[in-house]
């Protein structure tokens, strides 16, 4: 995956921000969302991103997996990231 052309990402103490500079909308990210975007910036594919996150963090009830998958779907739906 990759961020859409006009989308900028910056890490913050609370997580991060995505700034869609064409529509000029800012989205604040919690730590899980920030971790997902970090993986997108690194160029990983969606299934790989979810796998990498669930390997890195304990996720016995699959909460992180579900949240990461939902977030990736939302990024696609909003046009903030693409495959």
């Amino acid at each position, binding site marked *: 995956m990759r961020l859409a052309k006009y989308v900028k990402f*910056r890490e913050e*103490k609370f997580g991060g921000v995505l700034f869609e500079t064409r529509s000029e909308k*800012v989205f604040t990210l919690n730590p899980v969302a920030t971790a997902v975007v970090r993986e997108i910036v690194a160029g990983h594919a969606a299934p790989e991103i979810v796998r990498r996150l669930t390997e890195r963090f304990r996720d016995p009830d699959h909460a992180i997996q579900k949240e990461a998958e939902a977030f990736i779907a939302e990024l696609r739906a909003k046009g903030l990231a693409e495959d």
Partner: protein
Amino acid sequence: MDSALKTPAASPPIPGKTPAATESGDLGAPLYVAWQITNECNLACLHCIEESGPGKAFRDELTRDQVFAVLEQMLEQEVPYMSFSGGEPMVHPLFFEMVDYVCARGAELKIETNGHYLTPENCARMKALGVKAVQVSLDGASAATFNRMRVRGNFDVAVEGVRNLRAAGVPIEVNFSPTKFNVHEIGACVDMAWELGAYSFYSGRTMYTGNAVKAWRHVAPSEEQYVVFFDALRAKTDEYRGRMRVYFHEMGLLEELRYRLHHPAALLIVLPNGLVKLINALPFVCGDLRKESLADIWANFQRAWQDPRVAKFVEDLAHDPRKTAALHQWVYL
């Protein structure tokens, strides 16, 4: 866990020059820096809030070394979005070097221009460098209104400049400042922006400051005119939905400033001499990039909004709207 993705905290519409609606308090750096890189301008527009014009460059505008030191700080702090305005930014001798410096480092950059230097060569150069968008001021759909407002300006040259942007493939935004003698053309101007290839159209209220103070009785639209004006913009917003974003700021200045007292935008306004303002519509300065770091100024920006002098100025505006005439008498916080 909190929702992963959310839009900024609920906020009313904000003017075109403050796109970063996110509240700034928790951020490590601004999300947007609007830099008036020079006060020099080839035009002398009746309504210019900066009092720009020929020979109006500040005597202490940043030197070459200072310009690039400031840019370097912004890029190090990962400011994702900047705009260069003026004055007329394209008359700045370092304009293309500055554009190259920002774009090559991956930040998004918008140019706000009067359109008179948008030659095919300059447009191609901006495209090659990766400028995000060029915003051109088109305050009218005819030479009669445009040339009256933009003293020394030429409607045909500005329109040709926009056409050159389109030919070069540079994304286009159009800005419209209302006056009593051009508001009736707002619908035609939105249509013209679309025909010229713009993807965004901005407008709002003309401010009582800068050159507009002297020309107020010639430029200020009446409230009745504003009602019709904003109705037309609402209709155009619907008409162009999904094709071109029509974005306008109907809120009065006082309402906006009262909101900003509690919700400062993630935006810094940088003047040609490196002073940093809280917001364009207030006289308060919260730092000097010639002497202080961007990080220190950003921290002071948060504190400065809490300064009682700021709240008092805003509330005084309720009784005396003409206080905005003094915006260029800077107050250091």
